[in-house]
Every structure is written in structure tokens, then in C-alpha cells.
């Protein structure tokens, strides 16, 4: 005998299942659509012409769609942001997790959390008004005697890198701090018992023990930096160039933002190919992330 209650139970079980599956469907749909929209330009232009040519002239009479420099800029820019941002972030995490008195940590912690919440356009605005002029001054000082250098007015790779370095800070700090906090106290006590100072303990015991968490935080930081668009669109300069610090450059993300609104036909399809390249980078980072997390989980179980 089936009462209406049983039917409701059945229906609700299915409703909840469907809700769960929506996340899978979304990822699947995004994958499929990124490929569907990104591949036509590749087949039309040719994969080598697109990926290994450096000339990007989508609106010329004889258009060229080489995105090599754009890809290189995203890779180099992200790496530079990580090199600048990660040491400061990890040290901040050490400060918060190990060194700072509780009361001080209680002030700095929410500050870092707030940094994560500030919209990326706000970082972009500050980049334009603070970092750009500073870098322009530096640029003028460095290249005062080299007429070959094309002045960028501060809108260049290094300015964008500083903005990115600041933007990855909250992510890296929070995840590293949590993993350092999770290091069992007996490891620290043992280290102290052997006569080690606090600093030795932090650098020889806590950081190695929290290694997987710190690596996770760096991978998350890479993901954040490579995917950021709006904050750096107006500070990177937006000319397609080799990624040298004082060159005006275009990232994968900023290329899309800058041209999507007026692009048509093959040009628009090529922009979707840029999106596809970015998406593939992100998926690689995601897979790296789940591998490191899995490894960390296994190490924790041992």
C-alpha cells in the first residue's frame, strides 16, 4: 500500500538528486560550450598559425590571429605575481599562525579576510592611480637613455603583476594559515624540547609539516592570478607584446575583455579560442589541485 506520503518521499529524493546533479551538468555544459565556441577558429585559422604566431591583427585587411605572446604574457605574468606574492603571503600566514599574539592576530585576520572580499575592479582602480604612476616614474628612470624603448606610461606588465600579487594575497594567506594551524602541537613541543628556537621550529618543523597545504594555497593563487580580468585590463597596457616587465602587454583575460564588445565573425571566434586556452589552463590547475589535495589526504591518514 502506498500512501501519498510515500510518494512525496520518493519525489523529494529525486528533487534532491537533481539539485546535486546540476553542479555536474554545469561543469559538463561549460566544458562542452567552451570547446564548441573555441574550436571553429582553430580549424579555420590553423592550430600552428594560431598558437605559434605572434602577430595579432584581427581587424586588418589580411587578419592575423597569433596568440603566442598573449599566452606567454599570462604564464609569465602569473609566475611573476606568484614569485612576488607568495613569500609575503606565506610569511604573513606564519605571523598569524605562529608568531602574533592572539589579540594582534584577531585584528590582522579579519583584515586579510576583508581583502578577499574587495571587488576586483576596486583593485584595478587603485592599480591605475597608485601603481601605474609609480611604475611610470621607474620606467622613465630606467629607460631615460634608451630611445628604442616604447614608453608605456606605466601601463605595463610589471604594474599588472603588482596588482595580481596583492590580489592573491588573501587566498594564499588564509589557506596556508589554516594548514599551519592544523600542524599538531606535539611536533612543536618536541622541537622546543630539543632546544630549537621559535624560528627554527617554524621553518624546520611547522612549514615542512604544512607543506601540502601551502602548495595548495599556491596553486589556488595561480588559479586566481591567471583568471583575473577586470583588475588588470586597464593597467596592463593592452598591446600584444613579449612579456617583459616594462612592455605594454595583453593577457588571455584582458584580451577577451578588451575586444569582445566590438568583435565579429572570425575575430569573435578567435576570442573564444583565447577563452578555451584559458579554460584548459584552469582545468590543468584544477586537476593539479585535486591531486595535491588527495596526496595531502593520504599523507594525513598514514
Amino acid at each position, binding site marked *: 500500500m502506498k500512501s501519498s506520503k510515500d510518494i512525496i518521499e520518493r519525489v523529494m529524493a529525486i528533487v534532491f538528486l537533481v539539485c546535486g546533479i546540476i553542479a555536474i551538468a554545469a561543469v559538463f555544459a561549460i566544458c562542452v560550450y567552451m570547446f564548441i565556441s573555441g574550436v571553429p577558429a582553430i580549424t579555420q585559422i590553423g592550430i600552428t598559425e594560431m598558437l605559434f604566431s605572434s602577430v595579432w591583427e584581427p581587424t586588418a585587411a589580411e587578419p592575423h590571429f597569433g596568440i603566442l605572446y598573449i599566452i606567454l604574457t599570462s604564464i609569465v605574468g602569473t609566475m611573476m605575481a606568484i614569485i612576488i606574492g607568495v613569500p609575503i603571503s606565506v610569511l604573513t600566514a606564519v605571523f598569524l599562525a605562529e608568531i602574533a599574539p592572539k589579540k594582534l592576530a584577531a585584528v590582522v585576520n579579519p583584515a586579510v579576510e576583508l581583502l578577499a572580499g574587495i571587488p576586483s575592479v576596486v583593485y584595478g582602480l587603485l592599480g591605475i592611480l597608485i601603481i601605474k604612476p609609480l611604475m611610470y616614474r621607474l620606467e622613465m628612470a630606467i629607460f631615460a637613455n634608451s630611445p628604442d624603448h616604447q614608453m608605456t606610461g606605466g601601463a605595463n606588465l610589471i604594474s599588472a603583476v603588482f596588482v595580481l600579487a596583492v590580489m592573491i594575497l588573501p587566498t594564499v594567506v588564509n589557506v596556508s594559515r589554516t594548514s599551519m594551524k592544523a600542524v599538531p602541537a606535539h611536533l612543536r613541543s618536541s622541537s622546543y624540547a630539543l632546544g630549537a628556537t621559535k624560528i627554527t621550529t617554524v*621553518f624546520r618543523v611547522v612549514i615542512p609539516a604544512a607543506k601540502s597545504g601551502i602548495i595548495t594555497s599556491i596553486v589556488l593563487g595561480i588559479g586566481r592570478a591567471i583568471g583575473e580580468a577586470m583588475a588588470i585590463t586597464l593597467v596592463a597596457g593592452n598591446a600584444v607584446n613579449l612579456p617583459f616587465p616594462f612592455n605594454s602587454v595583453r593577457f588571455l583575460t584582458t584580451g577577451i575583455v578588451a575586444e569582445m564588445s566590438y568583435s565579429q565573425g572570425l575575430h569573435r571566434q578567435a576570442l573564444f579560442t583565447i577563452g578555451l586556452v584559458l579554460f584548459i589552463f584552469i582545468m590543468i590547475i584544477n586537476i593539479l589541485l585535486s591531486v595535491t589535495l588527495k596526496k595531502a589526504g593520504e599523507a594525513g591518514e598514514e
Partner: protein
Amino acid sequence: MSIYEKKKHPFEAVLYGLIYFAGAFAALLLVGIIGYVAVKGIGSINPTFLTTVKSIANGTFGILGYMVNTLYIIIITLLIATPIGIGAAVYLTEYAKGGKLVTIIEFATETLSGIPSIIFGLFGMVFFGQTLGLGFSILCGSLTLTLMILPIIIRTTQEAIKTVPESYRQGALGLGAQKWRIIRTIVVPSALPGIVTAVILAIGRIVGESAALLFTAGSVYLLPQGLFSHLLSSGGTLTIGMYLEMAEGNTDNAFGIALVLVVLVLLINAATKLITGRINKKKGA
């Protein structure tokens, strides 16, 4: 070396210095950003700025349209995303007990949270905008953002549901209640503070979002013509408005909007703290 001497790291003093510098840097960064935005932005805030829309004829600038659009997008996105997110969390914690599907759903959620907003923007533009024919509209933007905030809602709700004591469920089960009834009357109400936190976090994400909305909701700054017809018309949010002002070099207007955004972020953060503080207090009691 005497055993009474501590084993010092060779660069002990330098490292201490660097660590304190880094901590101070992070704190000063926030103070600097908020201070700078406040000082630069406060001059732009006036009644015209807050209560009108940009008027080329009068040469005035205002953000009311952007504010209304932001509110629209927050409400519509939450109306769609919250039930789905809670549903998924309930499925993961109450129905599925381990198994492959759970791993796949969790991997999918993980992946979604790692996708940058510009990719959501491209996908939303093609799928919701072109395939489903929504074009540039509030609804298109909201659907796109739904996918983006789903992971936050699922994960935060999941954590909240996990803290509901098993004895509650056992008690209800003992009284003869079935699963759906237990979920409806015990699990979800007990996890409500956690769910509210999830919603507030999601609001924070929506308020700060720009890249995913540029190609989906568009950038129109006007006030809505009709309450419901507005869903299908284009509307820019505060962040989009700010970006456009930045791009045109109107930094004063941009700083005004930045100040409004920062205040919103501060409020959202305070609200989250308040609620999680209450939850922890309850747990302690």
C-alpha cells in the same frame, strides 16, 4: 656549543623581521586601501550621486540605476541558486552515503569554484544569452552568477548540516517521521544560521562580480521600466558602472562607486561575523 644555548636559526633576526614586515604589510594594505578609497570617494557622494542616474543632458552622474540593477541581480540569483544549493547539500549529506556520485558532485563543485569569472561570462553569453535567447539581460546575468555562487552555497550549507546532531534525526526517526519530513522540520531549520551565512557570502560574491556580468547582464545604467519586464532588459551593476567610469577616465565617479562597494563589503562581512559568532556561542552554551 653548550647545551644551554638554544639552537638558533642562522638568520633568526632577519626572519623575524621579515615575518613582522609581512604581517604589518597585510594589515596596512587593508587600512591603506580602505583609507584611500574613503578619502578619494567621499567627495563624490552626494544626493544627486545616490538618487539619480547618469544624465548627459544635465551633465550629472548618479548610480541609482546601477544600485537597482545590483539589487535585482542579487535577488534573482539567490532565488534560483539558494534552493538548488541547499538541495544539493541535503542530497550530499542526507541521501548519498559515500559512493561515486558523491565524489563526482564534489569534484564538480570544486571545479566550479575554480573557474574564473570571465569564463562564466563567456559561457553565460553563449549559453544563456544566445542558445536560450536571453541576450543581454538581468536574467541572463543572474543565471550565469547562479552557477558561480552554487559552490559557496553547497559547501557552506553542507558544513552547517554536518553539525546538526545525529540524535535529532534519530529522535525524529523514532517518532516515525520519514526522511523528507526530518529534513523539512529538523535538518534544514537546525542548519538555518549556516544557510544564512552561505547566502550572505554569496551576496558578497555577487556584489563584487564584474567580468561574468559584462557580457551577460550588460551595462545599461537606466532605471527599470517595469518591475518584471526589467528581468529581460539589460542592466549594469555597480561594479560594471565603476569599470566603465574607470575606462572613460572619470576617476572621481569611479571612486564614489568604489566607496559604496567597500562599505557594502564591510557590512556584508560584519553580518557574516555576527551570525557565525552567534552560532559559535550557541555551540558553546
